[in-house]
């Protein structure tokens, strides 16, 4: 497997838990410096895949290279180049935010200044607070702080914004864009379409343990080339709709036919959500 320029290279990855096949032949590549979203419904195999890449879980079959190493056997020097934000939030009880981040910084060879990291994730005012007293969103920020304190080349984010309010999600996205802008390679899992669309260079849709498609958000499911739907209301026949690759021509035609405005006119392309639901519906 040629892994030049690839932060993550996966081929034929499989993993079962007893009779249940969680990951069923996943192929995936993440180029260095790229942001890739692994998008899929709950139980699609996102976390199993990512945790195999992180070195937490063993695999039944397949080739896996993460930063040039096999996660199943890679050591401390390899882990120093990774940042991991797990799906579940860690709890540190009575320790303060500054203490926890400071401690983790001490575990990495090239760590960032802990106070800077705390400020960067928006917890500057909470540095002295005990982690037990943080809100859900603040705990998640702490998770991210621990994920980035070691200056990772590759950052894994497993459903990072689940449970965030819209405002917090926007702020979080800015943080991720900042990291990506600075050259960090990012692989995130999410079941939010808008998150994948907002952050990812490419989206890998996973359903029932298989990658259904990998594409830029705008190209997903042939969306860019999909026919537009023109809908209007005919005074005599009621609601009408037609799929076409030349919507402008159709609208001009209709405008001529109705002598000006077309009643109830809409022109739409399938949304990412439509495309996504069709894709996971086809295999689920």
């Amino acid at each position, binding site marked *: 497997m040629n892994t030049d320029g690839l932060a993550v290279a996966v081929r034929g990855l499989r993993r079962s838990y007893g009779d249940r096949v969680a990951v069923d032949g996943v192929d995936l590549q993440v180029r260095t410096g790229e942001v890739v979203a692994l998008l899929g419904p709950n139980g699609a195999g996102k976390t199993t895949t990512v945790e195999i890449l992180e070195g937490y879980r063993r695999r039944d079959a397949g080739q896996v290279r993460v930063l040039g190493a096999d996660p199943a056997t890679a050591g401390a020097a390899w882990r120093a180049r*990774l940042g991991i934000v797990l799906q579940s939030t860690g709890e540190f009880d009575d320790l303060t935010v500054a203490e926890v981040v400071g401690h983790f910084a001490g575990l990495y060879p090239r760590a960032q200044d802990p106070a800077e990291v705390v400020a960067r994730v928006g917890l500057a005012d909470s540095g002295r607070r005990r982690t037990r007293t943080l809100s859900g969103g603040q705990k998640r920020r702490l998770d991210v702080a621990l994920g980035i304190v070691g200056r990772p080349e590759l950052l894994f984010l497993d459903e990072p914004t689940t449970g965030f309010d819209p405002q917090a999600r926007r702020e979080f996205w800015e943080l991720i864009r900042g990291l990506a802008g600075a050259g960090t390679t990012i692989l995130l899992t999410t079941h939010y379409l808008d998150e994948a669309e907002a952050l990812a260079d490419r989206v890998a849709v996973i359903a029932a343990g298989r990658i259904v498609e990998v594409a830029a958000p705008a190209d997903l499911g042939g969306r860019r080339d999909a026919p537009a739907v023109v809908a209007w209301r005919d005074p005599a026949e009621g609601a009408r709709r037609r799929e076409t690759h030349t919507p402008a021509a159709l609208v001009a035609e209709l405008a001529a036919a109705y002598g000006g405005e077309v009643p109830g006119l809409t022109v739409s392309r399938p949304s990412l959500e439509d495309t996504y639901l069709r894709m996971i519906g086809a295999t689920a």
Partner: protein
Amino acid sequence: MNALDLSWRRGRLELTQFLRSRESVVFTMAFPVIMILIFSSIFDWDLAPGVTFTQYFVSGMIATGLMTVGFQALAIQIPIERERGVLKRLRGTPMPPWAYFAGKVVLVAVIAAAETLLLVAVAVLFFGLRLPAAPGHWWTLAWVSVLGVTACTLCGIAFSSVPRSARGATAVVTPVALVLQFTSGVFVEFTRLPEWMQQVAAVFPLKWMCQGLRAVFLPDSFAALEPAGSWELGRVALVLGAWCVVGLALCLRTFRWSLDR
């Protein structure tokens, strides 16, 4: 960062966390003291002229205290940390796995020393415990305690992989500790126990810790009352040392960093 620095960093974090949890501080520190208060008050007669019951119990209480902070506390606390994802998170960093254990060792060592000191001080001040005069006895106290607490700590870490959940941990660990205390002669003079019970207890470290510590606090003439007619200090060292080896091997082979398969 060298190994010593890292161990100390981990240990300091563990201690900070421990000291901020008031319940565990009070329970860990006060439990052996309360036990000696109760037992020395109930059994307020002498074992032999000039030798109080306290002189016997204190060895069992010290041993129990060491087992509580080493074995019981870790076997309950580690499953909680495992369930909360703290272990998994640490495993994702470049930290070598042994550093986690080293932090626990520092934690246990500091608490064990503080708690033993408190226990002995209370026994001396309120129940007339007589401290040994000979330096040899102090040396015995030191090595039995260190070897005993090491064995307990390693077994505690190893045992922490047994409970399936954090909630189950207390239920699994507490009876083990309690049964060992009764069968190892902590509450009752060891030689009064049925012989089969003595033999079962002799497999486990607590019996040998108690016996080693009795050599420190009881007059030498009492050695004749032991099952073997002597303090058997060589065997004490051997059994505790063996448990350290077994515990370490189990730690390395069976320790689980997360609940995932």
